[in-house]
């Protein structure tokens, strides 16, 4: 509307028969009218509204999608992507030059010095191993290799080999020394994959919060880390029985950082002689964990903690999982075989079951 008024005013000033462009006022009028017109229509069409950007990358052995909305979206996404790739290179066991590979090649006589991030994550992983009595254990990798979960050709290995390998699955065989140095005992191999995605999500979120953004949603291979300045976010939890559906949704209140991390054997498993073997190992006997649990979703502000506990709770089975969750104040959704969702009572009102699932609160 403003543009129309403006052009009329200048037409009223047009008092001679001279061609329009010979007069500076006319040119300016035309130009200003067009500028106003364009800005008005752009506002109408919403093109000058919130900027949204998302990018999908391959990192941490999975797909990572970073999405941001707000003024700084472009810059934020670029810097976060760089940080993601850097962290992945540092923590990946598959990368021969990574700090984790160097740690796995270390010995008591030749400990390695780790960067601050890696040392912090390793010590945090050890802390959670202790708290979960080894149900979460960062040294489980050789067992995963033996079962073929890391190579892509899963199979049931020889039981003597399992016995031999499980001896080296023990977080107590990783030694943290002063001055950020550490070493592992012979045969022990550390893989921070079970906690690394949660940690990287936390670091990325911390970095992104410094930008002028209104919404941040990070999806690290299904681990969700989200925040929105003004609206509640609805986060679905995939159904372990049918991965095209959800078993429940969780409402994340606005201006709170929330991580939603699910562990379960419904995506990575294989069948041999009619028995189903999942990828989460029972570190006591070296076999895939076989409990009444289909999946465990841990919700909270700390993704590192959520990642470690979701694995541990899954391996425990619903009875012991409830006890551990209550003891350590973990907000979680335990998805049991009979269609029951055991939900921490602290999440009351925030978790909504989908059709076919019933919620029962505990704690």
């Amino acid at each position, binding site marked *: 509307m403003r*543009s129309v008024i403006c*052009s009329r005013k200048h*037409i*009223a*000033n*047009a*008092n*001679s*028969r*001279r*061609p*329009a*462009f010979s*007069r*500076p*006022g*006319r040119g300016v*009028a*035309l130009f*200003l009218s*067009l500028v106003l*017109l*364009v800005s008005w*229509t752009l506002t*109408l*069409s919403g093109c000058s509204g919130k900027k*949204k950007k998302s*990018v*999908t*990358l*391959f990192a941490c*052995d*999975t*797909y990572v999608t970073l999405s941001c909305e707000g003024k700084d979206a472009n810059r934020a996404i670029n810097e976060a992507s760089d940080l993601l790739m850097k962290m992945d290179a540092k923590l990946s066991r598959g990368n021969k030059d990574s700090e984790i590979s160097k740690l796995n090649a270390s010995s008591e006589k030749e400990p390695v010095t780790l960067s601050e991030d890696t040392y912090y994550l390793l010590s945090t992983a050890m802390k959670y191993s202790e708290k979960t009595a080894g149900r979460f254990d960062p040294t489980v990798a050789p067992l995963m290799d033996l079962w073929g979960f890391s190579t*892509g*050709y*899963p199979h049931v290995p020889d039981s003597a080999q399992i016995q031999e390998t499980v001896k080296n699955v023990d977080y107590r065989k990783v030694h943290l020394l002063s001055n950020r140095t550490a070493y592992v005992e012979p045969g022990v191999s550390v893989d921070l994959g079970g906690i690394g995605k949660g940690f990287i999500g936390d670091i990325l979120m911390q970095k992104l919060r410094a930008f002028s953004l209104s919404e941040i*949603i990070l*999806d690290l291979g*299904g*681990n*969700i880390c*989200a925040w929105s300045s003004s609206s509640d*976010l*609805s*986060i*679905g*939890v*995939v159904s372990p029985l049918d*991965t*095209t559906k*959800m078993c429940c*949704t969780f409402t994340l209140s606005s201006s709170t950082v929330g991580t*939603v*991390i*699910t562990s379960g054997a419904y*995506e*990575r498993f*294989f069948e041999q002689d009619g028995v189903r073997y999942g990828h989460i190992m029972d570190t006591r006997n070296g076999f895939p964990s076989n409990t009444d649990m289909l999946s465990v*979703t841990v919700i909270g502000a700390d993704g590192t903690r959520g990642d470690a506990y979701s694995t541990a709770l899954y391996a425990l089975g619903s009875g012991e999982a409830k006890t551990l969750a209550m003891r350590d104040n973990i907000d979680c959704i335990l998805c049991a075989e009979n269609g029951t969702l055991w939900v921490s009572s602290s999440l009351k009102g925030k978790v909504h079951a989908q059709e076919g699932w019933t919620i029962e609160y505990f704690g």
Partner: protein
Amino acid sequence: MRKKDGQSNTSVKKLPPRNFRFSSGDVFIIGAIVLVCAILIGGIFFHRRAHQGDARYVRITQDGKVLLEMDLAEFSDPMEYRIDSERGHMIIFISSEKVYIKESSCTDKICVDQGDLTAPGDGAICLPNRVVVQIVSGGSEKDDPSGKVDVIAR
């Protein structure tokens, strides 16, 4: 603005006559503005219509690079899209109704088990081949009928 107006008035030193009539130049300016208006509004209208319709696109990416992005309506004749890379091969069936991964050289076949992809938001991922097959709508993904949630944890 005011300064410029003042300048133009002093250069003419004459107020507009009362029986003012549009000159050819005035008509030209009005015409130009109306034309630009029409083009912009028309452009926005068509842009919105194109994005609001229920157009579904299939998007296939490998290693984050887009290999194919096409309107499903163009597949009234179904086709089989083949991917051959150093990681392995895949065959993706595409028709105007649905898309699914028909064959994959990967060992776990999780991608093949995903079945039919029909609605915007549906997707299948093959990690070994680093391939993502998605159905996306023309509009922003939040407007999808399947997008009752902002994101799904798995």
